[in-house]
Structure formats: structure tokens, C-alpha cells
């Protein structure tokens, strides 16, 4: 199999884009998690504020952060991910032919 045929495969353009989205999502996730944890949690414990009994840093970083990630993943999958077939024969029918 030559590398050229791989580059032309239209499915790979989609796959590459989705992988980049994955990297983007993980960066957002990290930023949220880190920002709230150390942004609110670095002060002295006596001055902590509390939400539903949890220290605010923990509530926003770990609990809200988790909910936000679930929503973000749902949005990304519903609106930015594309259905593609995985089988070899299906892809051959779709491309301009002459693959492999």
C-alpha cells in the first residue's frame, strides 16, 4: 500500500480533524480543572467558601468541571463528528477507484 492512497482517503481528513478536536477538548478540560483547583484552593483553608458543603475549589474544579466536560463531549460528538464507514470495500466504492 502506498502512502499516497492513504492521504487521498477522504475519511482520513475527517479522522485527523476529529483527533485535533480531541486534543482541543483535553486542553479545555485541563484549563478548567487547573484554574479552579489552584485559583480558588491556594489560599488558606480558613478563608475557603463552601458550595453544597464542598470547598468551592473542589466543587467548581471536580464536580462542575466533570458536568461541563460531559456536555462539551456531547456537543462535540453531535455537531462536529461525522459518520464514516470503516470497511475496506465500502471505502473503495466511494473513492475515485484505483486504491491499493
Amino acid at each position, binding site marked *: *500500500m502506498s*502512502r499516497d492512497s*492513504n*492521504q487521498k*482517503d477522504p*475519511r*482520513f481528513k*475527517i*479522522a*485527523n480533524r*476529529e*483527533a485535533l*478536536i*480531541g*486534543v482541543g*477538548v*483535553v486542553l479545555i*478540560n*485541563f484549563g478548567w*480543572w*487547573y484554574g479552579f*483547583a*489552584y485559583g480558588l*484552593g*491556594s489560599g488558606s*483553608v*480558613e478563608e*475557603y467558601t*463552601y458550595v*453544597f*458543603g*464542598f*470547598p468551592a*475549589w*473542589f466543587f467548581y*474544579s*471536580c*464536580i462542575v*468541571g*466533570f458536568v461541563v*466536560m*460531559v456536555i462539551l*463531549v*456531547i456537543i462535540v*460528538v453531535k455537531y462536529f*463528528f*461525522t*459518520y*464514516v*464507514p*470503516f*470497511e*475496506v470495500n465500502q*471505502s473503495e466504492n466511494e473513492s475515485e477507484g484505483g486504491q491499493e
Partner: protein
Amino acid sequence: MNWAVVVPLIIFFFIIFGAGFWSLRFVKKSNQFLHEYFLGSRELGGFVLAMTMIATYGSASSFIGGPGAAYTQGLGWVLLAMAQVATGYFVLMVLGKKFAIYARKYDAVTLIDFLRMRYANSRGVVFISAASIIIFLFSAMVAQWVGGARLIESLTGLEYTTALFIFAVTVLIYVIIGGFRAVALTDMIQGIVMVFGTLIILIGTIVAGGGISAIITDLATENPNLISPFGHDGGLTPAYVSSFWILVGVGVLALPQVAVRAMSYKNARSMHRALIVGTCVVGFIMLGMHLIGVFARPVMPGIDVPDKVMPLITMEVLPPWLAGMVLAAPLAAIMSTVDSLLLIVSSAVVKDIYLNYINPDAEEKRVRRMSLWVTSLLGVAIFTAALSPPDLLIWMNLFAFGGLQSAFIWPIVMGLYWEGANKYGAITSMLTGIISYACIHNLYPHMLGVHTVVFPVIFSFMTFIIASWLGKEKELRPLKSA
């Protein structure tokens, strides 16, 4: 013996057996034994896929060692554990469609199949990958079996050896008879048990502690650091905690037992569904399990062996019959990790070594028998190793994970997304990753305040690029003449 606890566990064991026997039908019917036994004929739907990834990944360390560490460290350890939310989506998004398409194109059944085809049939790549899978996963399995046996021991009061024997026989039987499909199915059942188990134990612990506010106040009174992000003695630095994003978050895609699942989905729709289900479930389990560990502290102070926190708190806060049912959760987590590791190591031996280099023309029947024997013998070997168990479960497990990640992350990722990746880069980066991981782990753990896995991953990335680039000329020549 506490029968109220034991009876639900026995029922759980029978359900697991049932799934194994149900899968046996598929193995018997299949005319492509290897595809069915090691990959379930690539027929996994979204829900099963999500659950099997989580169950495989969520192991003794998340259900026994993790809550134990959270008990000692406080909320800082829960913060660290939440890095794992990323595994729910990151693995599938990055390996995603490309890995599935390549796997079908190459007709790959194992991770090593993929690497072998991608890197021009390189014997070096196959040999190093197979060796690191066998060595690292073997040690990971020993740790898991010890965890499983300890758990049964503490629940039933049986002797350690007996407990280990029961655990080993159960896992071996359903893996040997059912293969990957049995593993995925039991993983699904185990995943569901894990979710409900987490929920029930968490609620029970909060109630026993008098509500969240009361628990947090108790913790702050005992030691204010327990409710800070920095751990009980301030030892969890932002750099150290953040570096766990590589080990338990993004690096997980390089674990062979996880990566192979990205070859097994039926279609893109299953993958999309698994992304959503996976993120919800993994986040919930990690948050819940580690919170239980923290909340257990005011409820049951003074537990000196952190690994015993989970079983002890469950029996403390729940009525016995319910405790038996939900304690199947940690047991499920351990079993579902062990069964996949067992299958991965067997596939490395049978498919990647035996069929590639020793006997490429082996008949179907011979391969079948060989697979069953290899899986059984591995089981016996692990059983023997687990008889004199090592102490620190979580660290042994993480050592194996870090080693595998250092070895495989770049050969997989660059193989998929960089045209210029070649076998010189792959071999060099795998060796660099493993050797630097072993050196740093033994000589300078926590170099510059970060987890051991960080530097090997950086080093192996650099050597991958350099070696691929230097080897470029060499690789073009045989291609032209071919």
C-alpha cells in the same frame, strides 16, 4: 463466614460464568478463530465498548489503592484522580476512526499487528513490543490478582491462598472459554455493577458521616490540609498532580489493552455513543470512588492499611446483604482488568510471536488449542507469582502502566498521524522510553517534582523524530527496488 455477604458474591460469580458460556457459542461457530477470540469479530456496540474500556482501565488501583490513597491524602487525591475524566473521551477521539480504518485495512487483530504493518514488517518493532507487553502486563496482572484475592479474603474470611485460587479459577475459566467477547460482556456487567456500587457506597458513607458539610468540617478539624488541593502534608504540588494527566489521562491511549478496544468497534455510530457513555461513566466512578475514600476518614478513623478502606467502609455503612452486592463492584473492577490483560498477553504470545515467526502456517485447529494452553499456563504462572504478594499494589500497577505508555505512545500516535514516521523512529523511541522510564523510576523518581512518566514520554518523542528523520534515506531504497 458471613453468609449475607458471601451469597450475593456467589450469585455474581455465576452471572459472570453465564456470560462466558454464552460467548463460547460464538467462538465455536466462528470460522475466523483469531478475530473472534482476540477481538470479538469487531462487533462491539457503543454501550458495551464504553463499559469494557472503563472496566478494563478502572482496576484495583481505582477501587482499592485509589480510595486508600484518598483516605490518607484528602481531597487533593480526588483532584488528581479526576484527570481520568479525560480517558473517557481522549482515547476514542484520538485513536478514533483512523485506528479503526487502519486495523481493518491491515486486518490487524492486536496492537502489535498494527505496529508491524505500519512499520514495514520490522522484526525489531515486533520483538520490543511483544517483550514489553509480556513483561509489563505480567507484573500488572500479579498486582491485580493480589488485589482480587485480598478482597475475597477480607470479605469471606478464607485464607489468602484459597481466595487467590477461587479468583484465579473464575477468571481463567471465562476467559479461556469465551475469549474477547466473554471479556467484553463480563466487562459490561462489571461496569454496571461498578456504577451502582459506587453510588450506593457513596450515599451510605455520606449518611453515616452525617452529611457532606459535617464530613468536610470533621476533616478540616482533624487537618485543614485534607480539604486543600495539596494533600495531608502539603506534598501534592501542582506540578506533580498535573503530571498525572499524562499517566492516567492522555497516556492511557498507549496501553495495549485499551488501544485494542479501539479496533473492536462495529461502526462509527458505536464509537460516537461510546464517547458520551464513556465520559459520563468514567467521571462518575472516579469522582465517587475517591470521594468515598476521603469521606471514610471521619466515619472510620484510624485504618492503618489504606488498601482495606473500601471493603471496611462498605461493611460499616451498609447492611450485610447490600454490602455483599456492592462489594462485587471492586471485585468486578479487578476481574475485568485482569481478564483483558490475560487476553492481551496471550495474543502477544500466540498471534504476534508464534504465528509471525515460529509457525506462520499453523492450522486453525492448532491455533485454537495453542491459545487455550497459553492462556491457561499464563494463569498458572501469575497464580504462582501472586502467592507471595508484594505490598504496594498501586505503585506496581502504575509502574507497568508508565512503562507501557513510555514505550507505545509515539509509535501509535505518530504511526497514525505522521507520514514520516518509520521503523527507525519507532524502535529508537520504544527503547528510549522503556530504558529512561526504568532509570528515572529507580534513580530519580519525581524528577523536578513531576511524575516519573513525564520525561520518558518527552525523550521518546524527541528520539522518534530524530531517528525517523535520519532513517528516512535508508527506508526509501528498498521501497524503490520493490
